[in-house]
């Protein structure tokens, strides 16, 4: 039987799901995620859970409450991409990850954080393996109300070809980008540098949207129904505050407070509503590029490893464009390719060039 790992944002009945948070330490879900059902039906064996940073919003798993880090395993891993962390991990570890088009893989049974942009994707050693697993995951699920019709979901793996790629270096000079460019060109794919324009500001909008949604989604973790409850409290208010204060890590607290601030009635129009408008502007910027190009190549991160001083709200500049637009993104050979909606299969096919598969 083929083995598969799930990251700890995906709920399983048999194994605990912590979402990387002390809040959900040992939490047992009474149901399986839709992707777990699909994988099991397709004959995969769930080999275990891969640790994630708290609610999967950090750089690359460093905020896991137990300090567990992602170690590369032999089998593919299904991972929820909330804020680009799987893409950064793939880029820095020579792996392939696909964040599919929004709405083609069910989010039913994933710990919700930033619902308007997060997607269940696949990490593996090769693009072809990613494609194999992804083909099991795609398809409509009536329990997720944000999905495309079944045929539309499946069309994402259909035959399309990437012939022309726009390169948005976003100010990063990297050997990977140069190498990827020359390899694509060597395979007859045209690559042209294009100014990123408003796409540079995708993370400014995404930080607002993601934190607001996170703030709202993690407000259900209050110490009452399940999960962590503080030992000491004198009244209901202290139960809430102590439980949440003791269980959430600093990055999540920061995100909660920022998200709450942008939604406050004073800031809603100037920050949250503004971010929603900019979201449309960015979608339109991509549409404009896609009139001429089939995909966009951009960095997935700015460096090969992180230190404590790196800030995810700055570093997510490279992953936010695909998160904020719902477009498919593949990281391979240390670079990122963002494609038109439903071009997931084509992106993986072209990525095989970057990982030198079949050579």
């Amino acid at each position, binding site marked *: 039987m083929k083995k598969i790992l799930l990251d700890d944002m995906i709920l399983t009945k048999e194994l605990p799901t912590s979402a990387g948070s002390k809040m959900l330490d040992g939490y047992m879900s009474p149901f399986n995620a839709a992707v777990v059902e699909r994988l099991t039906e397709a004959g995969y064996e769930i080999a275990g859970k891969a640790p994630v940073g708290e609610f999967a919003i950090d750089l690359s798993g460093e905020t896991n409450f137990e300090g567990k880090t992602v170690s590369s395993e032999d089998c593919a891993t299904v991972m929820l991409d909330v804020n680009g962390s799987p893409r950064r991990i793939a880029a820095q570890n020579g792996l392939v990850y696909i964040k599919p088009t929004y709405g083609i893989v069910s989010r039913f049974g994933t710990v919700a954080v930033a619902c308007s942009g997060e997607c269940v994707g696949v990490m593996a050693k090769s693009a072809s393996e990613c494609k194999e697993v992804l083909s099991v995951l795609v398809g409509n699920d009536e329990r997720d109300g944000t999905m495309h019709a079944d045929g539309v979901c499946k069309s994402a793996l259909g035959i399309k070809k990437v012939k022309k790629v726009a390169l948005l270096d976003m100010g990063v000079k990297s050997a990977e980008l140069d190498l990827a460019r020359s390899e694509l060109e060597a395979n007859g794919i045209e690559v042209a540098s294009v100014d990123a324009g408003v796409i540079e500001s995708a993370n400014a909008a995404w930080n607002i949207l993601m934190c607001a949604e996170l703030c709202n989604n993690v407000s259900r973790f209050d110490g009452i129904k399940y999960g962590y409850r503080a030992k000491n409290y004198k009244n209901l208010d202290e139960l809430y505050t102590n439980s949440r204060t003791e269980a959430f890590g600093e990055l999540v607290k920061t995100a909660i407070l920022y998200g709450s601030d942008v939604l406050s*009635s004073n800031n809603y129009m100037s920050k949250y509503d503004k971010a929603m408008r900019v979201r449309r502007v960015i979608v339109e910027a991509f549409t404009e590029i896609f009139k001429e190009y089939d995909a966009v190549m951009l960095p997935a991160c700015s460096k090969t490893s992180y230190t404590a001083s790196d800030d995810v709200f700055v570093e997510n500049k490279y992953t936010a464009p695909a998160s904020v637009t719902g477009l498919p993104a593949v990281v391979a050979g240390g670079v990122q390719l963002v494609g038109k909606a439903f071009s997931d299969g084509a992106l993986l096919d072209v990525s095989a060039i970057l990982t030198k598969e079949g050579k």
Partner: protein
Amino acid sequence: MRYETVIGLEVHIEMATQSKIFCSCSAKFGGEQNDHVCPACCGMPGMLPVVNKKVVDLGMTAGMMLNCHINRVTTFDKKSYYYPDLPCSYQTTQWFSPVAVNGTVTIETSKGKKDIRIKQIHMEEDAGKLVHDEWTNTTLVDFNRTSVPLIEIVSQPDLSSAEEVVAYLERLRSLLRFAKVSECRMEQGSMRCDVNLSVRPEGSDKLGVRTEMKNMNSISAIERAIAYETARHIDALENGTEELVQETRRWDDIKGKSFAMRNKETAGDYRYFPDPNVMPIVIDDEWFAKIKGTLPEFPEVKKARYIGELGLSDYDATLLTESRALCDCFESAYAECGQAKEAANWLLSDVLNILNKKQMTPDQLTLDGKTLGKLIKLVTDGKVSRPNAKKILAEMFESEIDPAKYAEEQGYIVSSDTGAIEATVREIVIADERSVTDYKSGKEKALMAIFGKCMKALKGNCDPQTLRQMIIDVINSI
């Protein structure tokens, strides 16, 4: 100085659906604690909301009944606050584009007719129920009611007295029960009302400080709360007894007073934002027309028709039009038997009696009107006697029967052989000399004894009027 009261209402109504608004749990009232619950409505991670179509149907229906404009694109938003009865710490409601806006409801009071403007109707999920346990001094949480679909009907501040408020609520109840949006039962909490009230000097065009009162569980409690709150405001304005502040107050019906609810520094900023997990609901022309086509005649239009066209009394028409189920049953019974007065009589006496005994409300009537019409026809055609027809009616509540077939099986068909009936009557009259003598000497009661014996011998299969006349004729003939 004279003062006037300015009142606006927020009325919450639980919709009559089988399942909840965003999950498939039962939406029924009651049940054992936390039995109608799933991971979605108890706030566990992983479930996503999927909108119940019937909720949108009923939201549109309510909007149309209250003459609202229906927003053809309607969306859901999230409202955040922490409270143990709110398992996700947010309520999914409609803030930016509610299903219906700008309506009117016409009420009638002792001062005549008045239009009350409706600001909006929005769809949302209900909260759970909290029970306070005295033994442990803790609060117990039951999520059965969580996510039961509600509509909130927000009026403009057009009401100026308790009498108008009561008329408005009764009008809403009548319209929404008629349209089968809800049973609107205040005692079960399926209709609840928050009162926004302020007081100002008569003639002033500036609104006074407004307070919102919650927790009134009956129409009479609402009347008491309005009287109390109005007096409190006037007292504060006239005598400076206290400074009025804009706040939410809880009505305590036992103490007969309102109390400021625990002041939350943060109350009021609910951080609404559009729900990313619920796609916009687009009401196309087909859907719109379908709902429009199911709207019932307004109760007063029906009543006028019952009186004008069908010749019912004002009294009967009023009683019938208090319940949509009664009207539906009446109309199909009438269509079958062609006799409006008979149909109304059967419904308002015999049928209501049975419902009463079963402790059911008229709205819970499920009797098939066509079958009732058939039964009425059997009686008016003289085929089944009235007493036997009542027995058949009782059976109709227990099982699905065809009245004619059932009458036959039970031997309830009136004999058309008048000769045989007369022979039976003659036999009994002759055998009961004493009653005959008594009757002839003017004791009307004696006739009843003979009547009873005859009816028994005939197994009730005889029209009482005919039988009575036949007995008199036989007595006179001997």
